[in-house]
């Protein structure tokens, strides 16, 4: 493949060019209630070619991979030469060659469709076994992808990815009271990673049913203990996106807010983005610009410590590259994205976090939310009251709202129990969704959180 890619882009009259070809195989199965809703396999092959000259990018994606690409590359070079020059450049990297293979026990490509269908049907049945569960959605997905990447720097990287996951959603009903709950699971591993998840599925059914008895929360200001699911979503959605340098470059106010060294939290607070974690769906060895993946501290000991970069944004801001340029598929050029974003664990045990709370909330998971620059609103999955240091009854319809920087300052204690969550979904940005990412956190305690009820 290298020789072919080299032939396509070598010798173009531009400052920089790269080409990425992907081959992938995907299986998806969706079961709704008793019925199979969707089942299909796809075999994709395509690529993306970019040329950069005097500050401008010109990009094309394609499916046909043959000699005609040489012509396409020439066309793009002509187009980019006709554009008015503008400020900007790229951080360049040395010539290099590397092949990265994915670890996998049970390669999903070799697992019969019948076995995949049976697995998700069984999980779905666990939900349906409960009388109060009136409707379910269970989805299975696996993918195998090989990415071939070459740049005009004579840099060549071949990377293999395997991802497997499933999601389960249960809708419970008691008269007019309808409650739903769902969870998603995903790993950068083979089919074996999806087996033996009966406990997770049982929990989905149980929580949906428990929610029928939960009462809506009373709105107000609370001391809140946030679980690892919601803590991770907060780190990614409310804070992580503000660290993306393409956002920062476009927004003067954000430039001020995100200045390196600015203090926003307690000494114990560190938030990182780390694509080098093993087996996570957000992991990779090289990003889609051939930059080595690395752990980047976004907040270190309470202060802004870094931003996430592509080659272009790193050049513009005069900072080091971080390897965060990712594309959801060959149909898109890479843009600045997160990978595995999490809050680094501290020393407190959950019991200690709870013990000091007289009247508060223990809040779990997220049903989505909205962020606009520094303000955020999240709906949680469910919550428990905390009374005299103990978790008591379940409550629902808990939404948290606030200013991300104030909320960071209000984090008063950080647990020691980090857990990282990946699933079938992912992150969306500029029309590229869902990009596989994970989020994580230990339990954290935040004071003065505005909680809205219904």
């Amino acid at each position, binding site marked *: 493949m290298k020789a072919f890619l080299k032939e396509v882009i070598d010798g173009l009259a531009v400052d920089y060019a790269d080409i990425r070809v992907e081959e992938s195989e995907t299986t998806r199965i969706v079961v709704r209630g008793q019925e199979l809703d969707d*089942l*299909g396999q796809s075999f994709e092959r395509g690529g993306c070619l970019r040329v950069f000259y005097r500050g401008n990018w010109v990009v094309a994606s394609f499916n*046909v991979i043959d000699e005609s690409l040489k012509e*396409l590359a020439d066309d793009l070079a002509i187009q980019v030469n006709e554009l008015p020059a503008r400020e900007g450049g790229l951080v360049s990297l040395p010539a290099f060659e590397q092949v990265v293979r994915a670890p996998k026990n049970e390669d999903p490509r070799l697992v019969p*469709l019948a076995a995949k269908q049976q697995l998700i049907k069984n999980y779905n049945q666990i939900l349906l076994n409960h009388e109060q569960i009136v409707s379910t959605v269970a989805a299975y997905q696996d993918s195998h992808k090989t990415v071939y990447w070459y740049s005009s720097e004579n840099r060549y990287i071949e990377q293999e990815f395997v991802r497997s996951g499933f999601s389960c959603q249960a809708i419970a009903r008691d008269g007019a009271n309808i409650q739903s709950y769902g969870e998603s699971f995903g790993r950068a591993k083979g089919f074996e990673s999806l087996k033996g998840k009966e406990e997770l599925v049982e929990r989905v059914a149980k929580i949906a049913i428990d929610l029928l008895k939960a009462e809506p929360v009373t709105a107000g200001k609370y001391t809140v203990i946030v679980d690892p699911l919601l803590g991770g979503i907060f780190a990614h959605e409310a804070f992580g996106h503000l660290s993306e340098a393409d956002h920062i470059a476009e927004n003067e106010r954000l430039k001020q807010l995100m200045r390196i060294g600015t203090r926003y939290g307690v000494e114990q607070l560190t938030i990182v983005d780390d694509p080098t974690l093993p087996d996570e769906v957000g992991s990779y060895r090289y990003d889609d610009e051939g930059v080595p993946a690395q752990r980047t501290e976004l907040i270190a000991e309470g202060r802004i410590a870094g931003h996430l970069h592509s080659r272009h944004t790193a050049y513009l801001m005069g900072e080091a590259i971080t390897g965060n340029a990712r594309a959801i598929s060959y149909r898109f050029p890479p843009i600045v994205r997160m990978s595995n974003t999490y809050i680094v664990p501290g020393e407190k045990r959950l019991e200690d976090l709870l013990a000091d709370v007289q009247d508060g909330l223990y809040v779990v998971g997220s049903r989505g939310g909205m962020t606009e620059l520094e303000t955020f609103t999240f709906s949680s999955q469910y919550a428990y009251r905390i009374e005299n240091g103990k978790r008591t009854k379940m409550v629902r319809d808990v939404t948290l709202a606030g200013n991300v920087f104030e909320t960071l300052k209000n984090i008063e204690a950080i647990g020691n129990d980090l857990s990282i969550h990946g699933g079938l979904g992912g992150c969306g940005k500029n029309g590229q969704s869902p990009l596989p990412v994970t989020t994580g956190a230990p339990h954290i305690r935040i004071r003065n959180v505005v909680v809205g009820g219904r």
Partner: protein
Amino acid sequence: MRYKILDMVSGQVDQADVYESEVDLTEVEFRQGKFYSVETKLTQGWGLRVIKNGRVGFSSSTNPERMEELTRAAIEASAFGQNVGFTLPEQQDLPVVQTFENRVLLATVARMQEWGRELIEVLNARMPELKVDLKFSRCYREIGLVNTSGLDCSFQRGELEVMVAGLLVQDGIFWVYDYVNLSGGQDFPLESVAERVINLARLGKQKAILKSGDYPVVVMPTALPQLLLPLLVAINGKHRQKKTSPLIGRENERVLSEKITLVDNRLRPFGTGSAPFDDEGVPARKNVLFERGVFKGFLFDLTTAEACKEQSTGSAVRSYSSLPAPGLSNIELLAGEAELEEVLQAMPAGLVVYSFLGGGMSNLLAGEVTLNVASGYKVENGRIAGRVKDVSVAGNVYELFQRVAAVGATQRDLGDYFLPFVKFSSFKVACKE
């Protein structure tokens, strides 16, 4: 390639169809008054649907070297697929629909850049403080379909569209939008685009305060699709099949104002949804959805039609990577007689909305909508008094569309929607201030 794929499966299955699409899309973008990017997407793909032992199987590919796997996967999937009993359509006479005009291909990257620079120059000269985003999108599409009943058809469609968004930062921020469909080969109407944009921006320079309450509201064509959405979801045959549409059993009943005649028309020349046949090869036709307010029927593909004991309405929509499902082509709302100026003059107080920002769709099928106004103006004593901020409207579209006071006399071409403005006699408006 579609013929080869069909050859590979025939004999192994009861029925099959192969959907082949080739799309050549080029987009030229300007942001904040400056050239931003050129992007080309060349897509080619195949979707194979098989029916074996009465069950449906599906797979798709963009890799011509994986055709063996494609056919194997579709057949393997059919073991678990939905049971169907319909027969795929045979070759029939197809209507002539204008979908391709050579002049669209003259819109080269260089030409689109030139248009963009010229428009920005004109806008800058008239209102330097307006920051303009532009997107030119040129698309050439070729769709081919073959099946085991002997069907073999194909068509080409050329699409050329321009999107304009102007940002005014003055006492808060305010957006104005414009859109032009040039798929029929028209010249780029630079002057009329500039005039509309500048006009809307000028009106928006003044801020106006509206108090919460019930007001007459004029919804301009650009904002209307979001109000029509609950109706267009409810007429989908899939919701008839699943028994989730509120329109079940209400055929030939008057459910909307007599002023509303809504049509799904794949035959319309140069719409971005125009085609001589649907994505299962059923000849295209004009489907009246509501005639003078009377509900006329659902849109079906072969699968939902069979399940509901109805006929396909030629409404199948698919991409190479998905199974067909009922969908929309070009939506037309028949023009009425009203002129905007006269309608506004007759309004003592009210709201004109040019754009909605998707708000909470609390219960889409039930027709409940809550929409934030992204671009709208207060009307006072028959004149536009200024732009409004933090305003949302809420209601039930089945009630709203019974309170239609006027329908505009001209249809605006929005690519796949062809709509006049609609004035609602009363709409619940909520304001922050």
